[in-house]
């Protein structure tokens, strides 16, 4: 039964040429436009050390330790061009790091060095400098220190890469509009009444809509993968499975959100515009238009953007692209699953508590 439900869903969905074009071309269009038009945003900062700076704070440091510090930092400064700047307020320095004003702050004590960095905001350059610093600091003192054999293997992030991921995520969010529409259509056509009377019920219908969304989303990912690989020459790296998993969870969230909005909307324009607005907002705040590191440097935004699921997705994707599976990936997975569950629960609550008031067009007219 479910197979037929899904089959019909896909059939109806894809007889609409608009839907088909949307699925196939939106990711390509967005990736191309964003990476060309907004390319300069990214190149200037990500992956270069220009204007990069690391703060340091002296606390009971012996002359010997300080000496060692100078040797290390000189080498790094030579190799990368970042500057080291002294600070006398450790807490202020930490705040500056959180606000992306500096790569990190090194606290120098009797025991050695303590490198502080931001968990969420550390840019590529910062990550490299930190790796160098830690390696040099741990190196055997008696041996001459060299950074010749330190491999700088973190990939440089450029606009093509950044927008391959973030624009794809953005277009996946937009797919919610199509799902919302398709759910709303069932109400408009009154076919939902037939479905309600049958064994499948609303649950079966919603499940098939969500699954349709997931199929469409996967097609989008495949299209974007092919396009970015073949045309833009972007290699998705060796954490492909993880990247795909993050995308699938994002698709799940977008489809669940869309179908619930389609179900509770009382008219078509409300249904479409609310999903559209939500997607736009998520996209803007999640760094799909303006890159994340710029948003993070803006005073109020830096906190607000964290409510966008795309913020977490883009964070995770950036790490995963660089081959790092870290807490960002974990947060992203939890947040996407959590939000999907939350939206479903809220829907179940309002439909049972509100005596299905929102479900039926027949009843909706009277609410």
């Amino acid at each position, binding site marked *: *039964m479910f197979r*037929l*439900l899904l089959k*019909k869903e896909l*059939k*109806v969905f894809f*007889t*609409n040429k608009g839907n088909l074009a949307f699925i196939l071309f939106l990711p390509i269009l967005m990736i191309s436009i964003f990476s060309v038009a907004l390319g300069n945003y990214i190149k200037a900062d990500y992956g270069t050390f220009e204007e990069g700076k690391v703060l340091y704070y002296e606390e009971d440091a012996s002359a010997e330790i300080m000496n060692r510090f100078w040797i290390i930092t000189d080498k790094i400064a030579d190799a990368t061009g970042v500057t080291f700047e002294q600070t006398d307020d450790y807490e202020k320095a930490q705040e500056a790091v959180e606000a992306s004003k500096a790569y990190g702050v090194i606290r120098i004590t009797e025991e050695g060095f303590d490198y502080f960095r931001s968990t969420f905001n550390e840019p590529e350059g910062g990550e490299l400098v930190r790796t160098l610093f830690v390696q040099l600091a741990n190196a055997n003192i008696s041996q001459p220190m060299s950074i010749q054999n330190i491999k700088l293997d973190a990939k440089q992030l450029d606009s093509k890469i950044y927008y391959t991921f973030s624009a794809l995520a953005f277009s996946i969010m937009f797919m919610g509009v199509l799902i919302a529409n398709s759910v709303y259509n069932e109400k408009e*056509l*009154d*076919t939902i*009444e*037939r*479905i*309600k*009377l*049958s*064994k*499948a019920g609303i649950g*079966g219908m919603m499940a098939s809509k969500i699954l349709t969304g997931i199929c469409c989303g996967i097609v989008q990912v495949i299209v974007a993968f092919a396009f970015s690989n073949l045309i833009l020459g972007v290699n998705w790296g060796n954490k492909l499975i993880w990247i795909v998993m993050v995308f699938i969870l994002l698709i799940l969230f977008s489809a669940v959100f869309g179908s619930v909005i389609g179900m509770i909307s009382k008219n078509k324009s409300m249904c479409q515009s609310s999903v559209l607005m939500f997607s736009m907002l998520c996209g803007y705040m999640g760094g799909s238009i303006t890159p994340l590191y710029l948003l993070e440097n803006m005073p109020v935004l830096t906190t607000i953007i964290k409510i966008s699921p795309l913020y977490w997705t883009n964070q995770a994707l950036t790490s995963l692209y660089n081959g790092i599976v870290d807490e960002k990936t974990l947060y992203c997975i939890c947040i996407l699953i959590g939000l999907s569950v939350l939206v479903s629960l809220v829907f179940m609550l309002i439909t049972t508590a509100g*005596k*299905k008031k929102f479900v*039926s067009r*027949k*009843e909706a*007219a*009277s609410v």
Partner: protein
Amino acid sequence: MDILSIQNLKKSFKDMVAVDGLSLSIGEKEVHGILGPNGAGKSTTINCILGLLEYDSGTVSFEDGKSSKKWSKNIGYVPQDLAIYPELTPTENIQFFCSLYGFKGEELKNRTQRALEFVGLTEVKDKKAGEFSGGMKRRLNMACGIAHSPKLIIMDEPTVGIDPQSRNRILENVRALNEAGATILYTTHYMPEIEEICNKITVIDHGKVIATGTKSDIMSRMGKDTELLIEFSEGKGNIDQFVHQVSEFSDVHHIEQEKWICKIRHPKNIVMIDKIIELTIKNQLSIQNIKNQEPSLEEIFLSLTGKELRDQK
């Protein structure tokens, strides 16, 4: 044994009472017609029966006292508003709705084919339903509701706005379905349809039952009335006295006068015309035109309720 029984059903939308204490029972193998004007509450009643609308009070129970949730697989619903996918072909539409009841494979194919034949859409089975005429869509709408062989088929004005051929086909189908053992609940505001296919009739208005019974019951209460329309030459004779005298006859149910035109309602088969002609002569009236009319829905209402049918919406 009743297959559906409704007791004292009430449903209002905000302060508008759509169904007002309606009771109704439908026995097995009946073709039960619900007759009522626009806005009488027919669709609302059906939606309550199906559980698609929550009702305020009353009970709806099916065979063995089951609720609509438990019994809904035995119900076939043909909604007033078309409920089909215009993007899909009739075959796909029927197959989909039938599969929702758990049918699959060969069985599903056979059922779909039979339903297509039944409503006469086999020839166009692979065209898009969106391109069909109104009548074809109505027939498909019906096929989608019956392919799973329900025991009770609820049809809400299935013949609204269609050509006579499609209409006749649908009426024939209703009869055939009934002969094959299905119970049918049929709503309409069109009397001839009810006469043609129903054996039980319930007349409703303002959400209330006005009359219910077997076809012959109801017919004897209203259908046997006939209306005599007489036009007199202007200015000749005493029309007021004539009207007064006619209204004294106990068999005359209703008389209406507008200047020199009179409408007199009386039961069929009663030799009334003679008496009336006698009176016209007595009152020195001269008849210009006289004709007998079958009563319309409005007039049936009038004779059942004694009040005018309110404006059609």
